């Protein structure tokens, strides 16, 4: 079995395990390459019909291309799309200018808390990967969050041989990470193999492209002429810069990602 097929099978197994354990499940779709690949795998696992809500946390600061892509494919793939905004925080003027840690926490983490509570969600599929960040590399496939959404990374449960912790206390929820073992290159090779649609933000406009996308305010493009999937893969084979170097929340201060994640960030 080739390497990509092996990864695909690992992910589909995890996706089906989680659904067998939690019928009150949802998926977070940021419209980026990872969660769109995850959505593709989920559609494969369930034979084209996604049997749970697909949630988009809208900070209001996303790229226009993201909104267009979301609306087009939500319709084409028949998704039960749930768009959620932390309106109260937005009205209170929270923005990247008032502080990035606070902004991410309010508009993403707290928005997520609200949507989980309102929809009685017990588990959430997320498209995070170990090779993105050293703190994410410590994750489990099934990872519990307490009622404050805190991640107790010092006391993670045993997980082995496709057996996971699956019983949560009241008000706890699980994060399910089916593509944890994929690398950035695997994602692009799979996008190519499966012909998965992607927003054009990832492709060079002639001089630059985005390698990782989130809010327009906190993402910087990289200099690149890669305007096709093949060229992106070639670029990644030769790059010497990390994937999330353009993402502000990864490095504003030491341990920023760890702080964000213990507070419930993805």
């Amino acid at each position, binding site marked *: *079995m*080739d*390497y*990509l097929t*092996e990864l695909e*099978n690992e992910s*589909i*197994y995890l996706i*089906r*395990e989680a*659904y*067998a354990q939690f019928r009150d499940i949802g998926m977070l779709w940021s419209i980026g390459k990872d969660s769109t690949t995850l959505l593709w795998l989920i*559609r*494969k*696992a*369930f*034979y*084209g*019909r996604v049997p749970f809500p697909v949630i988009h946390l809208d900070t209001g600061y996303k790229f226009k291309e993201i909104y267009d892509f979301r609306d087009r494919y939500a319709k084409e793939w028949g998704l039960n799309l749930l768009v959620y905004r932390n309106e109260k925080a937005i009205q209170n003027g929270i923005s990247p200018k008032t502080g990035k840690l606070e902004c991410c926490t309010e508009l993403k983490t707290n928005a997520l808390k609200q949507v989980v509570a309102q929809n009685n969600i017990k588990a959430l599929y997320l498209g995070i990967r*170990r*090779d993105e*960040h*050293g*703190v994410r*590399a*410590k994750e*489990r496939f099934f990872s519990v969050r307490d009622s404050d959404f805190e991640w107790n*990374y*010092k006391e*993670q*449960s*045993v*997980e*082995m*041989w*496709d*057996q996971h*912790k*699956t*019983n949560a206390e009241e008000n706890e929820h699980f994060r399910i990470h089916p593509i944890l*073992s994929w*690398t950035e*290159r*695997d994602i692009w*090779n799979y996008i190519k193999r499966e012909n998965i649609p992607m927003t054009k933000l990832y492709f060079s406009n002639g001089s630059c492209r985005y390698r990782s996308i989130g809010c327009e305010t906190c993402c910087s493009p990289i200099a690149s002429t890669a305007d096709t999937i093949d060229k992106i893969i070639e670029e990644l084979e030769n*790059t*010497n*810069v*990390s994937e999330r*170097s353009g993402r502000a929340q990864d*490095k504003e201060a*030491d*341990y920023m990602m*760890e702080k964000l994640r213990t507070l419930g960030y993805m």
Partner: protein
Amino acid sequence: MNRTKVSLVMVGHVDHGKSTLIGRILADTDSVAKDKMEELRKVSKNTGNELEYAFLLDHLREEREQGITIDTTQTFFQTENREYQIIDAPGHVEFVKNMITGTAQANSAVLIVDAVEGVMQQTKRHAYILSLLGIQDIIVAVNKMDKAGYSEERYIEVVKEIKEIFEQLRLSCKYFIPMSALKGDNVCKASENMKWYKGGDFLTIMESIEVKQEKRECPFIVPIQDVYKMEDKRIAVGRVECGELHTGCEIRVVQTEQITQVQSIEKYLEKRSEAAAGECIGITTKDAIFLERGSVVCDKEADVQYDNVINANIIWLERENVQCSQRLIMRCSTQETACALEEVYHKINTEQLTEADDNDQKMNYLDAGRVRIRTKNKLAFTRFTDCENTGRFVLLRNNSICANGIIL
């Protein structure tokens, strides 16, 4: 893009240099992004150290401040022919659970031993865990040779110690390498300081470990994960754990002894007439038979037992001990049932690798042993050596995995 995947775990006693070795390999093979390397220089300086290769893996604040690995982590790098998934496992006794979580995801292992300290408690325990998890491809790295004066004599002594343990555990090992992960001796290039050593450097040896193949030759087994009701059919989904199947082939449901045929093999947007070990598939059957999560579907000839008595080797992972007849939950493939230990025999102290002298029918923290388990409901299972995924299980108490075992 036809590289094969190799999952390699680093195990060994605390401070023998697991994270450092991984960091060193990443740095010497230019697998670390420039900005990450700069970040590393900066943080290393803050702690008043030279370049801390281990920080490439140890990302948690507590890990860096205390200079230890708390939780298992993974990193990735590629060579011309292979995609490596390198798993770092903590060496401290406090974190054996995390070590097992990491090691269970690997198909090969590197056991690291400090040349000065030699074999220590966790060296023994980790070697035992490798044998319990069925990991057979092991490289032994005798590390910190710089501190042992690059002495061949010392190296031979340490190798002898390890060979004795491996013999006891029936582990095989083809590769022993003297190295210094910190200085780079024999990591990615031959050492100038140990000309007496004629074997290859670590990277070369790593590239030559055999890649495990799926078991396709034996009769097939598919434990059912779930059943999806589609508009016009019911699809039972699961993973082929061994063997191959095709449409029209006869299948047996272990629990009900019903026999029918595979009507179709279902993969989204694919027309399939066959599937093999490792694949997640769906099936429909010719006759309308009842399947649910936990049903085990197999070839008529497959050697699957259906019983409520299981003999196994287990290791107990919780601080609070377990006694015979205490209620536990067993999960084996997609099945779940209540169970209890019925008898404990051959209890082994994993720190000393000696047989425990008490036969108190209890298992304490990190005890291993041969046990007989009685399950409430009958279970469909195989021996571990026949099919890995249907021959191993975990035990749960209070919703947490507290032991793992392989069926004999």
